[in-house]
C-alpha cells in the first residue's frame, strides 16, 4: 500500500521523491557551476601573464626610448591584448582599462619612460590612433575627425610627434601629428640620445 507524504492533496508519493531527488541534486550542482563560471567570466579578474614569451604568439615588440620597457601584443589570454613588460624587474605592468572586449588593439609604440603608450584601436567600425597616459591613467583618441583609414602609428621618445600611415589621398602616405611643446613631454628631445661626436667621422646633422 502506498503512503502519502506531506499534505493530502500532494500527488507525489515516496517513490516519486526517491527518483526525483538525485536528479534535483545533480541539477542544483550544475546550476551552481554555471553561476560560478558566469561570475568568473564577467569579473575583471587579474590574470598572470608569466614570462616575456609564452607558448602562444607574442608579436609587435616596441621598446621605450630608455630601453627599459617593452610593449607587445600577446595571445596568451585567448584575446589579443596589449601588454607592457619591464625588462629590468622582468615583470608585466598592469594597464587598467586598455584591453577591452569591444575593441581590437594593434601596433603599440612607447615614449621614453613608457609614460605614453600609442596604439591603433578599432572600435565601432573605425580604427583610430589612441594614446594612453600611464601617469594620469587616461586614454585619449588622437585622430578624432581625421578623414581617412589609418595604420601603423609611432610616437617619438619625447612624446611630441606621432607618425602614422593614412590612405586619405587614395594611396598610403605619412602624416605627422604634432602634439605641441606643451603636451607634457616625456623627457627633452636628445636628453639621453646624444653621444659625443667621433673625430674623423661625418657628424650627423
Amino acid at each position, binding site marked *: 500500500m502506498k503512503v502519502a507524504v506531506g499534505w493530502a492533496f500532494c500527488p507525489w508519493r515516496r517513490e516519486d521523491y526517491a527518483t526525483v531527488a538525485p536528479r534535483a541534486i545533480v541539477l542544483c550542482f550544475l546550476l551552481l557551476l554555471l553561476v560560478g563560471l558566469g561570475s568568473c567570466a564577467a569579473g575583471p579578474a587579474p590574470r598572470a601573464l608569466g614570462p616575456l614569451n*609564452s607558448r602562444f*604568439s607574442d608579436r609587435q*615588440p616596441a621598446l621605450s626610448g630608455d630601453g627599459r620597457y617593452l610593449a607587445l601584443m600577446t595571445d596568451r589570454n585567448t584575446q589579443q591584448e596589449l601588454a607592457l613588460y619591464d625588462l629590468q624587474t622582468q615583470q608585466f605592468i598592469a594597464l587598467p582599462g586598455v584591453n577591452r572586449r569591444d575593441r581590437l588593439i594593434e601596433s603599440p609604440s612607447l615614449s621614453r619612460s613608457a609614460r605614453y603608450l600609442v596604439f591603433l584601436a578599432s572600435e565601432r567600425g573605425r580604427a583610430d590612433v589612441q594614446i594612453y597616459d600611464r601617469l594620469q591613467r587616461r586614454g585619449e583618441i588622437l585622430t578624432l575627425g581625421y578623414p581617412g583609414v589609418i595604420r601603423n602609428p609611432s610616437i617619438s621618445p619625447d612624446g611630441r610627434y606621432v607618425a602614422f600611415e593614412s590612405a586619405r589621398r587614395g594611396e598610403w602616405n*605619412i602624416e605627422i601629428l604634432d602634439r605641441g611643446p606643451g603636451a607634457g613631454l616625456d623627457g627633452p628631445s636628445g636628453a639621453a640620445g646624444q653621444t659625443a661626436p667621433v673625430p674623423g667621422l661625418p657628424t650627423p*646633422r
Partner: protein
Amino acid sequence: MRLILRLTLRLTLRSPSPLNPNDRCRRLAQRATYTCSGLLALLLSGCVSGGRLLELPFDPGGRSLNSPYSDTHPAVSGRYVVSLSDRRGSQDLLLYDLQARTLIPIPGLNQWDVLIEDASVSEDGRWILFCALREGRSRLYLYSRDAQQSRELFPNWRASFRHPSLDARGQRLAFEVNVNGQWDIAVYDRNGQPLPIPTNPRN
C-alpha cells in the same frame, strides 16, 4: 576652398530682401553664424583631436616625406622619421629630418638586391635597424650613419625577422623572430648579446 569663400561672400554681401526689420535682423545673425563657422572650418582643417597635423610639402620630384607613390611604415624618433617608399621603383628606406624638412642621404643602405620591410631609427638619427629580404632569406641589419654601412645581425639564424624596434640611444634592440616555430620576441643589445631574460629566443 574657393567654393567656401564664394559661398560665405555671397551670404554676407547679398542685398537684403524687402522684409520687416525683425526678420532682416534674424537673417543677418544667421549669416554671421555661417560665416564664422566657415572661417573656423578653414582654420581647423589641419587639426585633429590630438594636435596639429604638420603641413609637409608634397613633392612630386621625390624630395619630401610623401610622394605620389606609396609611402609606408613610418617610425619617428626625435626629429627623424624613417619610412619606406616606392618612389624609386623599389621599396627603399628614407630618412627625413622634421626640423630641416629635408631628406637625409643614407649612402650604402638601399642595395639593389635588398628588399626592406620595416625599420626603426635612434633619436640622434645615427642608427637604423631594419628587416629585409635578401637572397630569399629574411635578415636583420643595423646601419650606422657614421660608418655609412650596414651590418647583418644574426646571420646564422634560420628564421624570419619582423617588427624591428630600437631604443632612443640605439643601444638596445627588440624584434619578432620565429626561431621556435612561432612568433616570439627577442631583446638584444647592439653587439648581438641577448638580454638575460627567461624565454629570450636564441639560435
